[in-house]
């Protein structure tokens, strides 16, 4: 019983041990000695154990502390992972409880903050003060002030006595939704001349109250073998309501009307499909292959009509413009192929030093926008072929504002000179450009990698799909960028590709989780006259152009 007192002066304690011990001559010292003989690893600071509360078991004490330390090192307390340390005295010290409890109640108030702890200051735990919850007064107060004063002072300052029982929520706090290192990376990579983007979200609301946006897809299609590659463009929806999906080296056509999928064909031996795009009338499918070929398939007969070779790397993006199919290659080159003539390569556009992953013609065929892995957005004049094969074009304008690969490209249907481009993980911003002047009109900061962008044809809204880290799909108003809806974790993996249906009310999203989901996000307008007049205008445009 007196052994701790004998040992105390020898131990590397702070010297108050002896004094405070002397001031507290009562039965708990036996308790003190009993507990101090617990095997505790000296190197680890113990939690603020209340001497009057029992530890679960002496033997387990050290293991428990190790777990606790590990838990504290991870910065949180896990449910069930840590043995409870603070419990009222029970079985092990039952003899002491009854005798101690009454005197304890008074003594607790009277003990100077440091005393019980110093009773524990032995050779096992030289620095038990480390476990005090934020006390600075504890040590000096025990010497100079009276115990009651110290307690009152501590209470008034909000210093919490160790006698209190502490509870915490079993779950750890969630991680930030945005990765701070990513945000930092984006900030550092942002070019000096760019101004910070305007953020549109004014409230935390996820959906507009007036409009019910479904948070579950209308339909889910299995897409086994869907390649989880950000750079590929593997789905396309034709105007005759057929969805082409490339799964590995196979191409399937899913008919939305019938709800059935048919196998169209496979890639050449040893290669894979890297992009698909339906022609404007939906009868032909342009296919980019991993070995650099561009193929043309006939949908009605399910046959491959043409193979156009020449590219040196995978063709990750293809887009039709009437009789031209434009292909973007892994080496950064963009070729126009005229599918009607034998010498199909009619133009080469060199404007990218990285893989071309985004490629979109303006619907009227005047301009072509391309985005690449070199973070560059190029806008090209659409005239091609008239200057003969071998002629290389220059972009109308080039933008380097993005700080990551640009795969998402979209032309606005109601404002023909408006182009949207979205950047990858290190950027997560959608920039809006005027195609006539090349000026940046606006920008929208999003929380995640932008994998595709679409302007909604019926309502003035912007639809974006995202990959890392939210895997979400978002709907924003244009031009105020109010968040109409955000569906986080729309897929279990990055949402890589999307295609808007021909009616303009459904959008299909495909992701690395090998599932294609169809979301009905918009309502069709009741009047049908408008689309017809638009189509008429298109026909007129085309005829005008062919005169050139």
């Amino acid at each position, binding site marked *: 019983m007196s052994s701790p007192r004998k040992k105390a002066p020898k131990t590397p304690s702070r010297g108050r041990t002896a004094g405070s011990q002397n001031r507290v001559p009562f039965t708990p010292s036996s308790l003190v000695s009993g507990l101090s003989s617990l095997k505790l690893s000296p190197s680890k600071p113990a*939690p*603020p154990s209340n001497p*009057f509360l029992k530890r679960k078991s002496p033997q387990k004490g050290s293991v428990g502390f190790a777990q*606790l*330390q590990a838990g*504290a*090192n*991870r*910065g*949180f*307390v896990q*449910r*069930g992972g*840590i043995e*409870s*340390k*603070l*419990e*009222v005295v029970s079985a092990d010290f039952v003899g002491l409880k009854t005798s101690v*409890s009454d005197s*304890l*109640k008074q003594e*607790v108030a009277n003990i100077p903050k440091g005393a019980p702890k110093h009773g524990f200051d032995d050779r096992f735990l030289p620095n038990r*003060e*480390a*476990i*005090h*919850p*934020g*006390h*600075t007064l504890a*040590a000096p107060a025990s010497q100079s002030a009276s115990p009651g004063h110290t307690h009152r002072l501590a209470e008034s*300052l*909000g*210093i*919490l006595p*160790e*006698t*209190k*029982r*502490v*509870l*915490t*929520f*079993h*779950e*750890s*706090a*969630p*991680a*930030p*939704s*945005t990765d*701070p290192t990513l*945000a930092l990376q984006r900030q550092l990579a942002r070019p000096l001349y760019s101004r910070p983007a305007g953020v549109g*979200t*004014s409230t*935390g609301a996820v959906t507009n109250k007036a409009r019910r946006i479904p948070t579950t897809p209308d339909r889910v299609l299995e897409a086994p073998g869907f390649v989880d590659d950000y750079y590929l463009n593997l789905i396309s929806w034709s105007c005759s309501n057929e969805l082409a999906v490339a799964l590995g080296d196979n191409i399937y056509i899913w008919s939305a009307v019938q709800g059935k999928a048919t196998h169209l064909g496979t890639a050449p031996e040893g290669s894979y499909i890297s992009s698909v795009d339906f022609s404007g009338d939906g009868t032909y499918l342009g296919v980019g292959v991993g070995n650099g070929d561009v193929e043309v398939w006939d949908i009605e007969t399910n046959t491959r009509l043409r193979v156009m070779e020449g590219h040196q790397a995978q063709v990750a993006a293809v887009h039709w413009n009437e009789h031209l199919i434009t292909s973007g290659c892994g080496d950064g080159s963009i070729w126009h192929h005229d599918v009607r003539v034998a010498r199909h390569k009619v133009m080469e556009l060199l404007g990218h030093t990285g893989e071309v992953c985004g490629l979109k013609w303006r619907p009227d065929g005047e301009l072509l926008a391309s985005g690449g892995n070199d973070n560059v957005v190029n806008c090209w004049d659409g005239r091609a072929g008239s200057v003969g094969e071998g002629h290389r074009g220059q972009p109308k304008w080039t933008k380097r504002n993005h700080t990551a690969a640009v795969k998402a490209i979209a032309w606005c249907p109601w404002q023909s000179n408006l182009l949207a481009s979205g950047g990858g993980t290190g950027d997560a911003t959608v920039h809006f450009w005027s195609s006539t002047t090349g000026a940046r009109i606006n920008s929208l*900061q999003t*929380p995640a990698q932008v994998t595709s962008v679409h302007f909604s044809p019926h309502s003035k809204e912007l639809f974006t799909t995202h990959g890392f880290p939210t895997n979400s799909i978002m709907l924003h108003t244009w031009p105020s960028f109010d968040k109409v809806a955000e569906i986080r974790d729309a897929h279990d993996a990055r949402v890589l590709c999307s295609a808007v249906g021909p009616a303009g009310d459904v959008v299909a999203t495909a992701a690395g989780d090998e599932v294609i989901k169809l979301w009905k996000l918009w309502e069709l307008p009741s009047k049908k006259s408008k689309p017809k007049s638009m189509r008429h205008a298109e026909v007129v445009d085309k005829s005008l152009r062919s005169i050139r």
Partner: protein
Amino acid sequence: MAEQRGAHDISLKLQGSIDIALEYLRLAINSILFHRNVYPSEDFYLEKRFGLDLLLTINADVERYINRVLKQVKLWLEKGEISHVVLVIVAQEGGAVLERWSFDTHLVELGSEVPLKSEQQMDSEMAAVIKPILSCDGFLPTIEEPTVFNILAYAREDEEADPVPPPPGWEDTHAYGIEEGKSEEVRLKTLDTKLHKVGIAVSYLDS
């Protein structure tokens, strides 16, 4: 009859007072998470209240987490079972406790005729107590490393009584004390709703 109604009035006032205290806690926690950089600034949106710019979290997970914690805190406050709510900020690497924001709650003795403050008064009271939190950046050391937060509750329990098992989802833990000798403590303004007093003190690791 009048007494019953009086008691009913008081319980209403108590509820209102608790709601105010909880709202204050929620706003304080959000502000602390933003200002102490526990979560990046993109996770927050601006809301003007009480004439102040308050930053509340957009992060749905964090909001849910805080709401669940506060739901339990509300139950405890109604029964007067807890004395302190502490928000600890712990470094992700190493688990060192960097800051402790301790909110102590006191229930003022209920009299039958306790005039609560008017809404206007409460608004200005809230502004007065939240402003010091926002200005703490002035003296608190900047936190460079990624941090995690945890919320603790100190039970106001009798030493005699057997401990009640913690409510579902809560467990006993140590007090997450700041390393001894290196902590500084600053006491900020107390929120007084006439029925509750919520005081706040921040202790931080001073190196």
